[in-house]
């Protein structure tokens, strides 16, 4: 009977997110990849297998074959290296595949990367490329934009659960606050609730600060079997569970547009596999592509009842010093959303938090268990990962 | 074999622009223009409306009134317009696909300025009466071009009407039709030109009136009818004055013309003009009423028709919105929005 091995993260790193004019894909993967290898004290020769998350190198920079590209430019040939894609969940899916490679026993040292270079094309084209994450034929074709889909969720949510519009603004304010303390974040500015509520409208009711930006970025994590992790780090981070799930591609086919069933299913299985309770989670990285998404995710993962996540924000509980810290790096909104990299960037932030290495003001005191939640499209893919510190 | 209208439908877009808004831009006297043209506002298509979308809405209404008709038995579809969305690729195929007539159907677009639609009616009469098919559909629909600052800008409007011609369950029988055509350069638009040009006052007597009057007189002579025999008269409406003048010369009482005189409140819908006027009349005509109609297309020519209403019209008319509904739901936009909807702005 085959028994899967325990897997640990031995190092993780994130490249600075933002408009990285001087850096292309090759430069971004170098920045994150080399740091991850150095932190683990390994050289390229030690890596046996690599999975890279990237949504659309082809449409952003005319570059496919990203797996081979990363292996080449990190000096990792001839190892197997492939790209996986699940729109904005590409990074989370890449992590899940890397995890499976080690858990299966086929590989020991596995590298997981995520990279997206979005700013070579103009905003208009970037938005067009991102619309590939929805159902092109029945959503994009009819005039839906990506913010538009989440706006449809927001309109219904605010209506059904009688939630104040200000709650969405509080999500943005909190994430910008955390981002201001994170040197690697895309946006370092703090914003006020007033600014969030009066910013230009993107897709009613979502305004500029409700929407994550177009960013360049990369992140990397190195995985190893737990039993040998101590050779590489004093603080291995155990992967207690990493569970992907899917739901309908289009919003119109969903059972309930205010619930991302993919998140519900992934989270339920992740908590079941890890044996953890919701209250065990000390810090979370949640997919806030739009402010509404952060609220729905907290509810869908079972931290509170549907419609009630707003209470946490009224009370400031999701700040780093609160009872349920969410997106301590600034989330997608402020830290940035280089699409294919985001899922790995979230893992990297959790590793930092669980090792007590985050900047003051955004470090969650005594964090031991973390959760990452990464979503693709309007909820067609979700990946929930639970990590814990092993000293 | 009796043939006639077995279904009819109209559509006019919701937006309007008043003469005042146009006059203000060009520094003209709105009151003088309104009284001179007999038009107070005109219909404007939304940015996402065009001749094809207007034609589809009108066609769907016509099918509703031809209750029980088997779509597969409509063997022809003709769409007449001066603003076909494509120069090559007929509006008719889009309409045919949208209302469910494909694939065993003949289709083509027609052009003859404002009488392109009535030419289609005549083609359908021939095909049905000749026994080639059970039903044919003819549509006149337009979004109507006019150069900014030109007098046409006050009247060139958007709208359309669809007619299904057949020999069974007739709502209004066609007693006869006559056409009168000559080469007259009164109003034209060259391929590739955005706006039409016209020859000013030359468009009156030698163009509109010559053809409308001669054609009408010829049909009545052929049928042995006189103006007094008719309960309604519809003429092409380039403005609110010409049709009244033509009616008066031919001996039609003004009361018979007013029900169809939609131009006063929605403008001149070019290929849709007389066909919308006819639809407005059918919305109220009773069994036994006789209707006279003469269209006019610049270039130039007229098609005249004589209709007799049957006992089926009243119950079928109620199955789709009347022209009056489309007229009344109008909502005004300022010139800036009008210019955006009509794509008068040039960018890049």
């Amino acid at each position, binding site marked *: 009977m085959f028994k899967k091995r325990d897997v640990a993260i031995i190092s993780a790193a994130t490249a600075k997110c933002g408009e990285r004019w001087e850096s292309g894909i090759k430069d971004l993967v170098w920045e994150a990849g080399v740091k991850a290898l150095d932190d683990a004290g390994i050289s390229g020769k030690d890596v046996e297998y690599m999975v890279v998350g990237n949504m659309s190198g082809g449409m952003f920079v005319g570059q496919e074959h990203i797996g081979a590209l990363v292996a080449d430019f990190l000096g990792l040939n001839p190892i197997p290296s492939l790209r996986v894609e699940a729109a904005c969940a590409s990074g989370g899916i890449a992590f899940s595949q890397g995890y499976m490679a080690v858990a299966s026993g086929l590989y020991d040292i596995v590298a997981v990367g995520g990279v997206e270079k979005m700013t070579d094309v103009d905003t*208009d084209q970037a938005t067009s490329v991102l619309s590939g994450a929805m159902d092109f034929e029945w959503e*994009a074709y009819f*005039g*839906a*934009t990506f*913010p538009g889909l989440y706006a449809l969720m927001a309109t219904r949510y605010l209506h059904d659960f009688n939630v104040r519009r200000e709650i969405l603004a509080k999500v943005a304010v909190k994430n910008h606050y955390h981002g201001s303390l994170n040197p690697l974040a895309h946006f370092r500015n703090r914003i006020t609730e007033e600014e969030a509520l009066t910013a230009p409208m993107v897709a009613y009711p979502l305004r500029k600060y409700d929407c994550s930006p177009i960013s360049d970025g990369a992140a990397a994590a190195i995985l190893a079997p737990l039993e040998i992790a101590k050779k590489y780090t004093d603080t291995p981070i155990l992967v207690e569970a990493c569970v992907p799930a899917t739901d309908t591609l289009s919003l119109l086919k969903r059972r309930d*547009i205010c619930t991302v069933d993919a998140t519900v299913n992934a989270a339920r299985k992740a908590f079941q596999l890890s044996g953890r309770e919701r209250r065990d989670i000390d810090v979370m990285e949640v997919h806030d592509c739009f402010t509404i998404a952060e609220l729905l995710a907290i509810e869908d993962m079972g931290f509170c009842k549907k419609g009630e996540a707003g209470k946490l924000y009224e009370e400031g509980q999701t700040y780093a010093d609160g009872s349920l810290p969410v997106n301590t790096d600034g989330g997608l909104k402020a830290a940035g959303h280089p699409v294919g990299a985001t899922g790995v960037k979230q893992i990297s932030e959790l590793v930092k938090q669980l090792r007590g290495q985050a900047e003051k003001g955004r470090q969650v005191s005594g964090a031991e268990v973390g959760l990452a939640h990464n979503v693709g499209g309007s909820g067609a893919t979700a990946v929930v990962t639970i990590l814990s510190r092993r000293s | 074999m009796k043939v006639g209208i077995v279904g009819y439908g109209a559509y006019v877009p919701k937006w309007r622009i008043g003469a005042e808004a146009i006059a203000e831009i060009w520094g003209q006297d709105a009151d003088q223009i309104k009284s001179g043209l007999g038009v107070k506002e005109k219909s404007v298509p939304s940015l996402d*409306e065009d001749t094809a979308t207007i034609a589809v809405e009108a066609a769907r209404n016509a099918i509703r009134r031809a209750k029980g008709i088997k779509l597969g038995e409509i063997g022809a579809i003709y769409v007449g317009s001066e603003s076909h969305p494509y120069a090559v690729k007929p509006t008719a195929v889009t309409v045919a696909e949208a209302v469910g007539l494909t694939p065993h159907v003949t289709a083509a677009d027609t052009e003859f300025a404002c009488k392109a639609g009535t030419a289609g009616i005549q083609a359908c009469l021939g095909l049905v009466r000749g026994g080639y098919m059970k039903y044919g559909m003819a549509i006149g629909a337009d979004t109507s071009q006019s150069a900014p600052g030109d007098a046409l800008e006050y009247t060139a409007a958007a709208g359309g009407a669809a007619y299904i011609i057949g020999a069974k369950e007739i709502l209004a029988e066609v007693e006869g039709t006559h056409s009168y055509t000559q080469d007259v350069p009164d109003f034209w638009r060259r391929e590739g030109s955005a706006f039409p040009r016209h020859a000013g006052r030359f468009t009156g007597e030698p163009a509109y009136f010559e053809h409308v009057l001669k054609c009408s007189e010829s049909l009545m002579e052929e049928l042995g009818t006189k103006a007094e025999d008719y309960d309604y008269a519809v003429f092409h409406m380039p403005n609110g004055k010409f049709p009244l003048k033509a009616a008066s010369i031919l001996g039609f009482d003004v009361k018979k013309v007013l029900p169809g005189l939609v131009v006063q409140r929605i403008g001149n819908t070019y290929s849709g003009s007389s066909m919308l006027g006819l639809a407005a009349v059918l919305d109220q005509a009773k069994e036994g009423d006789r209707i006279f109609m003469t269209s006019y297309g610049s270039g130039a020519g007229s098609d005249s028709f004589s209709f007799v209403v049957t006992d089926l019209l009243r119950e079928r008319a109620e199955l789709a919105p*009347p022209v009056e509904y489309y007229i009344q739901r109008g909502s005004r936009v300022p010139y800036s929005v009008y210019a955006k909807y009509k794509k008068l702005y040039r960018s890049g």
Partner: protein
Amino acid sequence: MSTSAAPAHWRRMRERYRLTGSKCETCGRTYFPSTRVCPNCRRKGKVVPIEFSGRGKVYSYTVIHSAPKMMSQFTPYAVALVQLDEGPKVLSQVVDCDPDKLEIGMEVEACFRKLFEQDEGGIISYGFKFRPLDDSWRKYYRK
């Protein structure tokens, strides 16, 4: 959106023009978009095409202010999830309506409109949109 994909425009044309989907004659459920297999009955289901009535209610809505180039001339425009009377939801725009007047539960009916043009010389794509349901026209015949 790819610019010269004529086959892609044509492939779903009939469904876009006539708002068609599928109905499973075995269990009675209707689906949009069309499906070859009934998700409920699987292989036991007999699936046939259905043309929806076009009537429905607004399930949720948004107003798009920022859109890609092909759609930017239309902004701001309303997009809604409409729950058709027959059950399935569809996504499209709401027209002939002030965006400020949109409401969840508003009754709408399908209409035929232009979706977009590839570019100035390109294919024009048409399909269904929705407008507020207005049966007031019936009163004109009551006189």
